[in-house]
């Protein structure tokens, strides 16, 4: 979260390093935990350390990871977005509808992405210009987007898409699924943008103190709207990629996805108070939860227990953070 290292005045470094370390602690802790789970599982299950398993895990986490980018940006700005799961579903059905109607692939994809942008724009305008609480605004758009997806498909999945559309879902580059490449590219790009980009740095100011940000001359409303648009667009992209992988548009896809995304982002260090969180942290949070679920599946733990464990990890992560801060204060 610092602007990188530079030789600073002697004597100041102690406090600086301690603070920098505290900020990075969440990412480090998660990385250590992830390694621990991998080692533990490698010993516990012969099937865990296989290419097939890792491929399954990585492809499975793609939609959550992509949505978590937008969610983390929004959380850092002091907002959030409950509509991502529904937008993902709506986008997957829209892209499928357009393809079935005979639209070329780029047109169909652009249409679905535009739809995500539109939902994000509405969310952003309703929150900033009308002043509706983000929870209420995006809860509303979550229901509306899901409802539209169900209405236009009458609840059925749309399959028999042109085979070429499935390329993104199947392709591998250097042995790594294309979907994972896209995800990694987005994670790295947005992580750097949030650390060094002047536009995205402003997000943290707004989340830390919106009044002060306004008085400091930041275009608060415009920046917040862009954050909502980004979240909608990324959710729509996740929907297109999912449709490509499944070769169908599914109106019921991504059910309760928004809560998994929120949980992963918070485990990764974002806060509902705003002003903090990194994309890398959120991505590590996504990986950690995915690994944990995979490990439990491998160990034949019931799916119901997996929910309980995820919930416990979420609360433990935030509680740990609170306790550490109380110790510092």
């Amino acid at each position, binding site marked *: 979260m610092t*602007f990188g290292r530079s030789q600073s005045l002697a004597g100041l470094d102690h406090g600086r390093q301690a*603070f920098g370390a505290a900020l990075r602690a969440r990412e480090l802790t998660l990385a250590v935990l992830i390694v621990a789970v991998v080692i533990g599982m490698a010993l516990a299950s012969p099937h865990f350390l296989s290419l097939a398993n890792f491929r399954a895990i990585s492809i499975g986490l793609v939609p959550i990871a992509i949505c978590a980018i937008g969610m983390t940006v929004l959380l850092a700005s002091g907002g959030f977005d409950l509509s991502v799961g529904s937008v993902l579903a709506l986008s997957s059905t829209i892209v499928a509808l357009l393809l079935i109607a005979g639209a070329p692939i780029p047109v169909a994809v652009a249409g679905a992405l535009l739809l995500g942008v539109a939902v994000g724009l509405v969310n952003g305008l309703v929150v900033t210009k009308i002043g509706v609480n983000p929870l209420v605004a995006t809860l509303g758009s979550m229901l509306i987007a899901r409802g539209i997806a169900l209405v236009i498909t009458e609840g059925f999945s749309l399959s028999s898409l042109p085979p070429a559309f499935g390329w993104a879902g199947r392709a591998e580059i250097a042995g790594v699924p294309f979907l994972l490449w896209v995800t990694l590219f987005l994670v790295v790009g947005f992580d750097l943008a949030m650390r060094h*980009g002047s536009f995205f740095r402003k997000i943290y*100011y707004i989340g830390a103190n919106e009044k002060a940000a306004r*008085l400091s*001359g930041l275009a608060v409303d415009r920046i917040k709207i862009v954050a909502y648009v980004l979240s909608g667009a990324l959710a729509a992209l996740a929907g297109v990629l999912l449709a490509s992988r499944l070769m169908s548009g599914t109106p019921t896809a991504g059910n309760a996805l928004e809560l998994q995304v929120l949980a992963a982002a918070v485990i990764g260090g974002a806060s509902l108070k705003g*002003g903090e969180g990194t994309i890398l942290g959120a991505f590590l949070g996504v990986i950690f939860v995915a690994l944990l679920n995979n490990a439990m599946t491998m160990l034949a733990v019931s799916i119901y227990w997996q929910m309980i464990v995820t919930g416990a990890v979420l609360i433990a992560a935030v509680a740990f953070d609170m306790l550490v801060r109380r110790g510092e204060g």
Partner: protein
Amino acid sequence: MAAPLLALSGVSKAFGTTQALAGVSFDLYPGEVHALVGENGAGKSTLLAVLTGVVTPDSGTIAIDGKHVTIDGPARAQALGIGTVFQELSLAGSLTVAENIFAGRLPTMAGFVRWKELRRRAREVLGAFGMEIPVDRTVDSLPAGARQLVEIAKALSLDSRILLLDEPTSALTNDEVEALLGIVARLKARGMGVVYVSHKLSEVFRIADRITVLRDGCLVGTRPAAATSVSSVVRDMVGRDLAPSDEDARRTPGAIALKARGLSRHGEFADIDLELRSREIVGLAGLVGSRRTELARTLGGLAAPHSGAVEVRGSPIRFGSPRDAMALGVVYVPDDRKSEGLFLSRSVMDNAVVTTLRRLSRFGVINAASSRMVAHHAVDRFRIKARGIDLPAGSLSGGNQQKLMLAKWLATNPGIVIVNEPTKGVDIEAKREIHNHLRRLAEAGAAILAVSSDLLELLAISDRIVIMREGRVVGTVGGRAATEEEIMRLAAGAGHHGVGEAA
């Protein structure tokens, strides 16, 4: 004469090294309105806090009906018959008048609220004091004056015999003030004792039987209102000699930088004409309720005026967004550094560079090295004591936070600076440094409007001082030649009512 209802003697209280009250004695008789006046920091609030059990005195005694008592908490104060109406109202806005009056004491039967009974009792309380307020309205839907009366009714419904009113008219219109003073007179006629704390001496002289003046925590004196005058009370309040304003280089104000004409905002201020020149510091003085902050916020672009015009260097401006104001070289430095001024959880560096991110970026990427340099430069220039620029701003002391806040806005090299309470809650050394920064800024060509409740501060830095009262400019005095008494008299409105002459 009957025994006093309330008698404090030799009450002292220190907070750290600050002696907030030093051996203060004060008494109150039944059927009396006893006014308590003094400048900010004179000890009025501490005295009220002692009477309401919020603060325990270090020494001294309190007696009610001649019996020695200990007030160890608000509940105890209530039980002793002391009702209080604070400056900041403590009503639940979304609940009804009746629910507020009986908050925490709703009449119930088997766990259910007896609404009819509640309304009847609320009407009874309001009616007894001649307040005509519908009991089923929510408090939010009432005008400020009625809310104030509800608060009083709430205090009275506790069978209080002593009522403490802290600046009760600061948010009221003239008609509402009349209504409130009428109620106070009625309470007095019923034998209650009222302690009336107010800045507005014209009101004090209308309603009070006796006036007690506090200054720097000490009792200056208690006199019957009939035997004193506004000017002698003002002299008692100010008391000390003017501190010499130090090292003030003679500035010659330059061209007009900002000009406001006929500026009005409904319910706040009206017909304000104001000019700021470059190389000039203009002080803006006024008591609580004078709307000086509202005017400053409008000039700083936080709110748009309903009518009137603002010109910056000759071109007319329609303010309403701090961002637009900043683009024109106008900055507003707020008085509340925690809620509006700083990003306390972000680093000193993040705070120092936020207003100049554009200059520090190329192709949308922030230059880390330049940012560090700018932040180090700000820390040096404003002598901000920080253990490192990567520490959160919240870890700095109040004075250093204040300096960081100035550094943050002055980084944009504004031509016009509107600064609200520039030294709020800072120590003497930091105060001096901040004053010197403002002077240097003016010498370098900026036009500065300094809003402050600290008259000594305004006298020390201003070329001239504009005085507001109840949303209007009531006078302008030269910064060097002026006295606190002159300003206080204008601000309190004594001249307006024709009471008292210049000392």
